[in-house]
């Protein structure tokens, strides 16, 4: 066990490992800190995995907005830094620090998954970096843990479902069953639904929950049939949404018990779900078919640039870009001028494809929620379910 050539090799391999680790530390800080005068924009999005589609859409939206507004931020050139967050909450802080501490970005745009957002939020609060949330609806970011440097351009988890209740009662569906996954986003979506539905005079017969990310719905669909509600309201996102609608239809429930949901049920899922989705009504802060010149122009520009159709995620990314441009222009590119920067972002009116919206005191959008129905594989907007809906911001100590 002690032969010389072996130990020589051991020496080599062992030292290589240690020196390698040390030298990465020695070299890279120099590269990252090189001053270039460019404004550093950090994008922390899912580029792999289940939410990769969404990450791409958001980034596309951000870039489109910035390019349309001249391609510069407050007159400064932009340097983009990207980190794939892999939708891994355990690595959230590490990945956020790559952008904030290693690449020293001036603004951090991210992310989709709420668990990862928790990590980003911690880094944002500790470091004070400007943090723009283009999707994750986790309540705490604009409630109990709100911060002056954190702005959200998407929604809070309870906003879309808050508007659902009134629409359902208006159609005469006063006794409903709610179904979703048992996890934070599901709980928060339920919070909104419960508030809105009860306020409109509806009754929730039963609240059904599946362990996340279980997609075996049969047992609970049977339960729903046995409960005989007027309607079913739900929150599902991702591949499971299509499966749920397919299973719901296959169980014969579709024509007997109308299905409603948070808009994420039908976003990007209509091809996969096919005829099972027809007639499903959802509420969301955007609809592809919003008939305004602004939306039409946006959709045209997006399709031309990226050769695909935009969705709500692209719009959220786009609005993030608009917000950033507005703020950067207000401080002429000096993002260290925080008082002016935050004031500009707090008082902005975003002329979004979803309609004009403003920031609430806790830095969440105050926006219209649309009622949509699926017709011919399209989410057709048939009305406004709630006008200028704000998140409660409960527990936020700002403003």
């Amino acid at each position, binding site marked *: 066990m002690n032969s010389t050539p072996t130990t020589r090799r051991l020496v080599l391999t062992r030292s290589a490992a240690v020196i390698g680790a040390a030298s990465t530390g020695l070299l890279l800080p120099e590269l990252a800190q090189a001053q270039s005068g460019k404004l550093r924009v950090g994008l922390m999005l899912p580029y792999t995995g289940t939410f990769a589609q969404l990450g791409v859409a958001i980034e596309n939206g951000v870039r489109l907005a910035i390019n349309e507004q001249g391609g510069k931020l407050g007159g400064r050139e932009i340097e983009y830094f990207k980190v794939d967050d892999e939708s891994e909450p355990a690595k959230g802080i590490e990945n956020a620090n790559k952008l904030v501490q290693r690449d020293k970005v001036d603004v951090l745009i991210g992310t989709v998954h709420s668990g990862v957002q928790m990590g980003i939020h911690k880094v944002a609060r500790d470091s004070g970096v400007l943090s723009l949330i283009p999707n994750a609806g986790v309540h705490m970011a604009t409630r109990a843990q709100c911060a002056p440097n954190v702005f959200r351009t998407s929604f809070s988890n309870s906003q879309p479902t808050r508007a659902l209740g009134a629409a359902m009662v208006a159609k005469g569906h006063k006794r409903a069953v709610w179904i979703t996954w048992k996890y934070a986003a599901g709980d928060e979506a339920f919070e909104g639904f419960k508030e809105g539905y009860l306020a409109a005079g509806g009754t929730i017969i039963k609240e059904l929950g599946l362990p996340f990310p279980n997609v075996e719905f*049969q047992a609970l669909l049977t339960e729903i049939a046995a409960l005989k509600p007027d309607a079913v309201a739900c929150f599902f996102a991702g*591949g499971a949404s299509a499966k749920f609608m397919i299973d719901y239809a296959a169980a*014969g*429930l579709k024509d007997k018990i109308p299905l409603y949901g948070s808009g994420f049920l039908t976003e990007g899922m209509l091809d996969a779900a096919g005829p099972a989705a027809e007639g499903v009504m959802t509420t969301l802060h955007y609809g592809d078919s919003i008939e305004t010149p602004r939306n039409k122009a946006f959709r045209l520009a997006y399709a031309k640039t990226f050769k695909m159709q935009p969705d709500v995620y692209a719009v959220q990314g786009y609005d993030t870009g608009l917000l950033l441009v507005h703020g950067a222009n207000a401080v002429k590119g000096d993002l260290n001028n925080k008082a002016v920067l935050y004031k500009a972002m707090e008082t902005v009116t975003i002329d979004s494809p979803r309609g004009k919206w403003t920031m609430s005191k806790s830095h969440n959008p105050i926006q219209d929620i649309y009622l949509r129905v699926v017709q011919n594989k399209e989410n057709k907007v048939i009305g406004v379910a709630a006008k200028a809906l704000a998140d409660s911001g409960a527990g936020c100590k700002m403003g």
Partner: protein
Amino acid sequence: MDFPTFLIQLLNSVQYGLLLFMLAAGLTLIFGIMGVVNLAHGSFYMLGAYLAYSLSAQLGSLTLALLVGTLLSVGFGLALEWLLFRHFYKRDHLDQVLLTFGLIYIFEELRSMIWGDDVHGVAIPALLGESIPLTANLSYPVYRLFMSAVCVALALGLYLLISKTRLGMKIRAGAFNRDMAEALGINIKLIHAIVFAIGVGLAVVAGMIAAPVSSVYPNMGSQVLIMCFVVVVIGGIGSVRGALISALLVGLVDTFGKVLLPSVSGMLVYMLMAAVLLWKPEGLFKQ
């Protein structure tokens, strides 16, 4: 719960259980006969789903897609066995865990590069698209009955293959005592290749027939993988009969658990496994 609902939930349990069985059977076969831990089994399931999506789009019908897909998967299984897995039969379980974990990464990325990250649907063939009304409100989709029928047919086929054919005899001999079987002139290498291909084939076919009801999306393999492992452990590694009983048991616990004990339903199956192992540390049916 009234009686009709109870019966329907029973039906749901059996249907889910049978699908799990199809996946678990492949896993337990590969474990039992070749002693290989295969964490990438879920990836084969996902491959099946994506194949169903692509092939039915290209060939126009799901049935054709099933046939072509099965052939492709058997070929894929043989290639994979020959290239990689056969060198790992004698290796530590640890090495197998590591190898197959690396394979999961590779398959996930290949899937992303070949098919992208979008969510897709697979159309149910019109013949099977109806639903049978069971109660005033609830219908049962014929396609799910078809799925269960396929699983039962495969289970029967597997049973017949292993206990009634010469090939099955050789497989059992090889599993019992590899060296002796080889000494008696049985081509163990070929047997192992065939068993591996069958295992992979079962997973891929499971993915294919489940695709219309489960949709096709990234990471769908990892969700079934763990459930699959639990089924195999409860049933006893290497026992196909055990996998069947255990899969049905898991189907029952999962289905009724969701309805009766929703607050712990996520953990119920694991609790079942813990209970079984306390009673019988090597699963219900030792090989």
